């Protein structure tokens, strides 16, 4: 049992805004009272639910290829073993143990892997299981999947729905991820799409059809999280248009547009490249069915990695850096390019501004989440810096002065005076993501919630405050104290099992056996081995 007393509590889901009150835990859950057990005096401290990483690339084949290809990255940060913890390396593509410790040291207790190919699901789980402390889950790449395209082309919505449900169960996945719909399919021949109505290659279906159909599937299966969309034309000037069109295409079906910064640009080329954030934010403000995450850029080295093969190739051409591509049969692709965001580069400066504009222009903090699309926009350990930029407008203005003037001329950032409150920070880093993910036991401190808690000293500098919580509590036990890991234990894996008509197996078996190179029987992951600590999150059909 644990009792945290005298702390200033920020628990937005329960409407608690900085009131001093006790938070108690027993048996891994928040309880209303804990008469005995350990007491933490949080006088002068801020108490929040554990942070929830909404979208990061931390586990699976693509991430591991990123680690493998970047020895130069690891040399920036070595993490020695301790009697309690395993050793590892950082920086933008940390090893699995380092990933878990690092997140925990920042007060984060849950992480969602943003993109796993179904064929590599075992690999995703093996790595998730080697990420200590955190609870986790993974989003399953579906936007260019052979059977998804096929059933849409055949207009067979019932089968599409069953297939998605089957695939989620076969992979132990959590949500539907869509990356450059139709575009990745055409990339398998070296091409791309650039409008919402350009067809895929394997079947003549368009990005519009893919997004709309999967959005309907998500609703009808009652999946806890909406479709999670990486729009077409990512990274390209003028792409705010296709992002808007994608949101318009789904009408009032729920949609999450991920790392919106990377899809929030105006202009027709690099010459007139400018922010498209105001248009996107205006749409989001008007449409309650839309959520976004920032995908904030952090100046310095990054490792870009997405399932968007054609974009990664383009970034290789633009940067001349080393480049990995991996096309995965029947399902998706992946690309990786190391990159460095520079303050002195006009385009990079605008990109940096766009993420902040989105966070400041979207009025409802429940619908915009703090991410860097780790490690694409920046490493997750830069979160305290970003929080400071949101909390403190003078600091923001100062930083803006130091970056390329493009950020002032080609974005609205200098005119934005909004400052986030701690309450709002708690929303965009925990309560909001928990709600959007449909994780009811996460992101709050009400009785019955998982006892995942972060306690920060109220420092004058919010960056310091958020970089080193005094205590981090996971499932009711202290796992980190003053930046040190004090307990190493495995986390759990969330998955969904919406159920499906068994007929779907015979509907896909033929093509599966013809075109995959693994046996149908060997494809699904074995839950007992790959999700040893699992939690089913229920689906609520409308």
């Amino acid at each position, binding site marked *: 049992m644990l009792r945290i007393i005298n702390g200033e509590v920020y628990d937005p889901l329960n409407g608690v805004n900085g009131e001093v009150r006790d938070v108690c835990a027993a048996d891994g859950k928040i309880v209303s009272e804990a008469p005995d057990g350990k007491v933490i005096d949080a006088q002068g401290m801020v108490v929040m639910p554990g942070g929830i990483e909404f979208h990061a690339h931390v586990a699976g084949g693509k991430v591991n290829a990123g680690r493998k290809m970047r020895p130069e990255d690891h040399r920036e940060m070595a993490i020695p073993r301790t009697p309690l913890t395993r050793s590892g*390396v950082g920086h933008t593509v940390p090893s699995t143990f380092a990933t878990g410790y690092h997140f925990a040291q920042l007060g984060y207790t849950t992480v969602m892997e943003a993109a796993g190919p179904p064929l590599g699901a075992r690999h995703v789980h093996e790595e998730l299981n080697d990420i200590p402390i955190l609870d986790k889950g993974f989003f399953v790449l579906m936007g260019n999947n052979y059977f998804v395209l096929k059933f849409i082309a055949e207009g067979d919505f019932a089968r599409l729905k069953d297939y998605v449900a089957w695939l989620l169960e076969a992979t132990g996945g959590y949500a539907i991820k869509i990356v450059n719909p139709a575009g990745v399919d055409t990339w398998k*021949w070296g091409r791309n799409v650039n409008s919402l109505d350009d067809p895929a290659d394997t079947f003549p279906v368009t990005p519009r059809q893919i997004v709309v159909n999967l959005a309907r599937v998500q609703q009808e299966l009652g999946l806890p999280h909406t479709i999670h969309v990486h729009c077409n034309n990512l990274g390209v000037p003028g792409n705010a248009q296709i992002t808007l069109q994608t949101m318009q295409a789904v009408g009032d079906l729920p949609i999450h547009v991920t790392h919106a910064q990377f899809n929030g640009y105006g202009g027709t080329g690099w010459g007139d490249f400018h922010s498209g954030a105001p248009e996107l934010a205006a749409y989001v403000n008007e449409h309650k069915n839309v959520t976004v995450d920032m995908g904030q850029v952090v100046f310095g080295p990054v490792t870009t990695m997405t399932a968007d093969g054609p974009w990664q190739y383009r970034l290789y051409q633009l940067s001349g850096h080393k480049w990995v591509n991996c*096309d995965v049969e029947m399902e998706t692709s992946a690309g990786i390019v190391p990159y460095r965001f520079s303050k002195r580069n006009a385009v990079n400066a605008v990109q940096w501004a766009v993420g902040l504009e989105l966070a400041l222009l979207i009025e409802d903090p429940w619908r915009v989440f703090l991410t860097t699309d780790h490690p694409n926009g920046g490493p997750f350990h830069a979160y305290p810096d970003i929080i400071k930029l949101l909390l403190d407008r003078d600091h923001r203005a100062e930083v803006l002065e130091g970056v390329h003037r493009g950020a002032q001329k080609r974005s609205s950032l200098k005119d934005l005076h909004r400052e986030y409150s701690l309450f709002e920070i708690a929303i965009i880093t925990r309560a909001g993501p928990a709600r959007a993910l449909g994780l009811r036991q996460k992101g709050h401190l009400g009785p019955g919630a998982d006892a995942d808690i972060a306690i920060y000293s109220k420092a004058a500098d919010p960056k310091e405050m958020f970089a080193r919580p005094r205590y981090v509590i996971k499932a009711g036990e202290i796992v980190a104290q003053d930046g040190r890991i004090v307990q190493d234990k495995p986390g759990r894996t969330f998955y969904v099992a919406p159920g499906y008509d068994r007929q779907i197996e015979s509907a896909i078996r033929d093509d599966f056996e013809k075109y*995959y190179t693994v046996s149908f029987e*060997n494809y699904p992951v074995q839950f007992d081995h790959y999700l040893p600590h699992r939690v089913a999150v229920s689906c609520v059909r409308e």
Partner: protein
Amino acid sequence: MQIDHVVCAFCGCVCDDLTVTLEDGRVTGVKQACALGRAWLLGHSAEADQPPALIDGQPASLEEAVEVAAQILSQARYPLIYGLSSTYCEAQRQAVALADLLGATIDCCTSVCHGPSGIAMQVVGEPTCTLGEVKNRADLLIYWGSNPAESHPLHFARYAVTPKGLFIPRGRKDRTVVLVDVRPTASARAADIFLQIKPGRDFECLWALRALIRGLDLEESAVADTGLTLAQLQDLAGRMKSCRFGVLFVGQGLTQSRGKQMNTAAAFMLVRDLYAHTKFAVIPMRGHGNVTGIDNVLSWQTGYPFGVNFSRGYPRFNPGEFTAVDVLGRGEADAALIVASDPVATLPRVAARRLAQIPTVALDTHGSETTKVARVVITTAPAGISAEGTIYRMDNVPLRLRKFLPSPYPSDEEVLGRIVERVTQLRARN
């Protein structure tokens, strides 16, 4: 009893549609496997045919062997853990945990086969794909310094040359197969075109192809020492540019000959250049069982794919410094743990000799040259027959090895876990 969809752990193909027949605790029949896979699967039984362990050549119990192994490893100043290619990922994870705990050096067979492919990837990246993409799309296959007919016997039939695919309706007829090697190997029979290059001239050939694909004019004299004529190279370059989906398979003929990682980097860059014209991929022909698995496990746990040293308490990577051949050859390693591989038979003689001089612990399913010189030998259950776990195919596709035959011996995972536990206790005491 008949078991379907058995996954073969013997080579990098990781065929997963074998059928195995069991009678009286023995594998009596194997279908859909090649001769190598069949021999491997038929070679094991549920009976104890060797002692659980040997210490100094004398039969011993597992407990005694684990104790001596733990003592040897924790007393060593510079222990080496090596091999791990023929075991599954859960065991490999224990081996890395042990290396981390001991401050040891850990290396795998990658460093003597496709290490140069790994280094090339760190230099230029790697445009690649899974084998299903080859089956479904590839109309041009180029094998360079690789002899799948002998090293990966079912590769041609399952993945590359003969199968029909989504966009390859006629199978073999829709594909052109080129073999580049220093001699006509058994794989030449499967090829439409065989190009015999001079030994040690791979880099020059690849660089000439890059030039031709970029549209540079070369003189005949520029390619004079490659063993190929300019016309042959032009023809190949033309095919590479005009195919719809090409795949370059690189083998040890490329990675282990003069130039090593420069050769593989040249191959990767050549494939990268081809994106200006068409779609292309490069796939290293990773060999043994689960060598791709240890590569992955090491990468996610330490950041580096092979040759990892923990002596400073965190992982460091330096091929040539922390690779087994070098650590042994220079006489630095003062104890060794060998798991599921036979370095005494496969490493250069000076490295093998060192293994005989120092206290070596070997985990294997059967006797080998290495178990002959090892101080401690522990018999373990064969992966994919009597022990289950994850295996990565040569293209990084993970599959689950199953256990269908009981074994009197513990699994590698269990034995390594016990050594980890014992070493932890010994450490805590000091």
